């Protein structure tokens, strides 16, 4: 079964057309987000379809996909909670935040909870050190998160609510976040 429906395949072609001839390869990241928006992660089939759209070998696509932690190649929950544990955040208590998330989610890091709802991900610097410690829920930043706040964010997700991020609008879930990152606009 194709990952991309005929309509989405058309969308993929339009994304590709944004880049100059001979440089279509540059469309790889948005296309990977596009397939991630469908399946909630990038599967083997997704990699193949991106390769197919761009006329590349699957390995060339997987080489890129396996570099970016935003592109998830493993089974992934509907929401991804990323906790930065890099230097600035670590100095401001990220370890405790991460431990809180770990307790609350109750699964091993990088795996998916049994109900398919959540994935906990340990992230490198999110580029918002001034607001350390930083947590992302589906790529939306939450600044100065305490262990307490961490537990609340997860509780909310369990209730089916998405908490307001520190800036901007919260994507509905990881798939929608991927859709936005594919450059396809703010909502679907």
């Amino acid at each position: 079964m194709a990952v991309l429906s005929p309509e989405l395949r058309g969308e993929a072609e339009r994304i590709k057309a944004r880049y100059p001839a001979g440089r279509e390869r540059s469309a790889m990241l948005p296309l990977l987000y596009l397939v991630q928006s469908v399946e909630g992660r990038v599967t083997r089939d997704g990699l193949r379809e991106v390769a197919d759209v761009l006329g590349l070998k699957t390995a060339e696509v997987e080489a890129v996909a396996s570099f970016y932690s935003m592109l998830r190649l493993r089974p992934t929950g509907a929401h991804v909670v990323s906790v930065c544990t890099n230097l600035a955040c670590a100095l401001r208590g990220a370890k405790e935040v991460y431990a809180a998330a770990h307790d609350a989610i109750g699964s091993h890091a990088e795996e998916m909870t049994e109900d398919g709802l959540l994935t906990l991900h340990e992230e490198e610097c999110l580029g918002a050190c001034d607001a350390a410690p930083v947590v992302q829920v589906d790529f939306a930043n939450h600044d100065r998160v305490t262990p307490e706040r961490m537990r609340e964010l997860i509780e909310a997700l369990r209730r089916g609510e998405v908490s307001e991020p520190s800036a901007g609008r919260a994507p509905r879930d990881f798939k929608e976040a991927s859709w936005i990152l594919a450059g396809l606009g703010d909502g679907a």
Partner: protein
Amino acid sequence: MTQEAVTLTIDGKEVTVPKGTLIIRAAEQLGIEIPRFCDHPLLEPAGACRQCYVEVEGQAKLFTSCTATVAPGMAVRTQNSSEVVHEAQVANLEFLLLNHPLDCPICDRGGECPLQDQALAFGPGESRYVEAKRTFEKPIPLSPLVGLDRERCVLCARCTRFCDQISGDRFIELFARGAGERVSIAAGEDFLSPFSGNTIQICPVGALTATPYRFVARPFDLSSVDTVCPHCSAGCNVKLDVRRGKVVRHLARDNLDVNDAWLCDKGRFAFRFPDDERRVTIPLLRDRGLEPTSFGEVMDAIGDWSRGKRVAFLTGGRLADEDAYALSKVARTAFVTNDLDHRREFAGGEAERLAAVAVTDRALSVTYRDVERAKAIVVAGLDAEQEVPILHLRLRKAARRGARIFVLNPRRTRLWDVAEHVLCRPGQEAHVLEQIVDGEGGDSGVGRAADALREAGEAGVVLAGMRLAEHPLAADVALRAARRTGARFSLVPRRAGDKGALAAGVHPRLLPGGRRVDDPGERAEVEAVWGELKNVVPGRNAKQILEAAANREIDVLFLVGVDPLRDFPDARLARHALENVPYKVVQSLELGSLEPFADAFLPAAAFPERDAHFTTWEGRAQRIRPVRGPAGLSRPDWEIFAGLARAMGGSLGFESLEDLQEESVGLLSPRAFSGGASAWVGAGAPQWIDELTLFTYPLLVDEGRLSEGASELKAALEEKPFLEIHPVDADKRSIADGGEVRVRTQAGQAVVPVRVTPDIAEGSVFVPFNQPGLAANTLLSGRFTAGATVEAVAAAEAAADPERLTVGGGP
């Protein structure tokens, strides 16, 4: 244009090199060795391993000498004169070894490993690292040919750069760049490149290993010889390794004039045929059955059969140059026949005669270097990747250097990403080439090819493959296209012995050096060496020989390194011929399917047992050398021919290889050649009466004899039979991709899986010549094309069909 020169010093020694030279290359010129892993002179610099540090005076940081170019007055210091550099190199090696396992005792690379060598020469000797190393499941197969032990990898990216820059087959990549970085292939995919073995050879550690060589030998177990690949006319330089008398490996030798540093996987991995268990190394003579005998007896018998009788010789493209020369001479002098041929395609015409002359006069030919430097290249009737693989890599190299390449073929080739393809139905080539000659075609592939050739002038190249030889004088039109613009021209045959056989005159009309037997002046030049030739009428070509044999017009048929049942494009004619010739003499490595027919068998020495030459498609004669003596009683082919001459009561006039070479050199040296006018009088668009034109040619990896025993190669790259058809033709017949079709020709029929693809010219269908289960010559009537009909076969019917994948008995 003179290259600007730059003078600098390295370790205090002055050196002058062209501007743009890398420091590491400049050091090489001074004989200074800088340790390196990722650097490879034929790949673009990567600076991945950091081993090649040097110090540049006045610069704060160390430079990687494989990425930094020289500058005037630069003062470079290597580990030889700089303590800082020495320390950095030691530290870097310690770092590279952090995760490297202590695998040397069980690693195929042990004993010839750049990491081992350089760790010894430049390394710290001891590691301070006590933590756990990276481990991986080992080895993972990238294909049935290539295994990867990831923990041994130093992440130099040589293998991935080869696939990116040289072969263009980007199956492997660096995944998870960063701390978890590793070489990998996409899940569920195979390393399906016919050049995959090169990555093994350039891997500077034992991370990539060859399945056929895994745990087979240690370098100190091997005896080696420098020789040339026998598989195709590319003429790749190889090193052949033998362990206890058995060939265990082929490696590429560097030769920038020929194969750069590469081999195709067939040349690398199809090395077991000389040791195949079916090989026969004693002479045989038919009594009740085929009985072992001596050379003396078998020769006497052949002499008795042949004296005063009608004799013909067929050979393939496997003979070495010396053998071909001896064959050409023995046939004409001792057996007084011009019925001899090495071809399966029948070129004829000026282009072929020119090719025969050009073999000995390279000024008339094309070289790899010409291809590499060309500005415009037209490749007509050739699927280079499948037929002459290293030429394919050269064409890709030319493309990277900016050449405009046009491929005129009925099927898209693997040059698709670097060349413009003009797909034309078989039979249409001459017409299309004529449009190129006339500069017609406007804004089309044809028009662009014509323009490109015109603009390139002498920097143009026209390569005519064997598909052109199928059609009367198509190669001549290609030659005209080249002449019109000053481009260089070459006929590109496929097999290793083809050019040598053409030059030597294993041909019904051409004597050595392309001299015509029916041209008194040219003949006299040969007679001055050979004595008077009693038969001056051009003989029969291969097809005519088989027809004559089938009509009982031939008494003795020599089959030298050829099996017409498998090789000739008409299986039925070949069978009739064999059934109707009183005496069949087989000279080869083995009997194969000729066993029931042979009346005498003459065991030939195999390629690793030979001192001789093969001539590349360019016309470059290269020496092959023996790594062992002839197996059993087998002998070099030329010696067998000398024996045959004696059995006929004559003599070839040479008893040693040196004598033979001395004699032939005169006849094969350059001579004045004035091309005659081609008989071509204008093609006009061809008309087809057939529904579809079936065409076929051998794929690189198939059931050919020289691939016998290459099980891993076949597991990796040998395709099952298939038929390709254009979507328009498929639609008309309600044929769906992936189903099965029945193809019928005048000669036979077969049921084959179908591929519907726009990569084939409309009106054409392709089947490979010799994949397992379908010998396409059962569908042919003497040519490599045939009129055909194709129809869909319902799945149930196909399953029940006993003729599935085999040939039927007529339409």
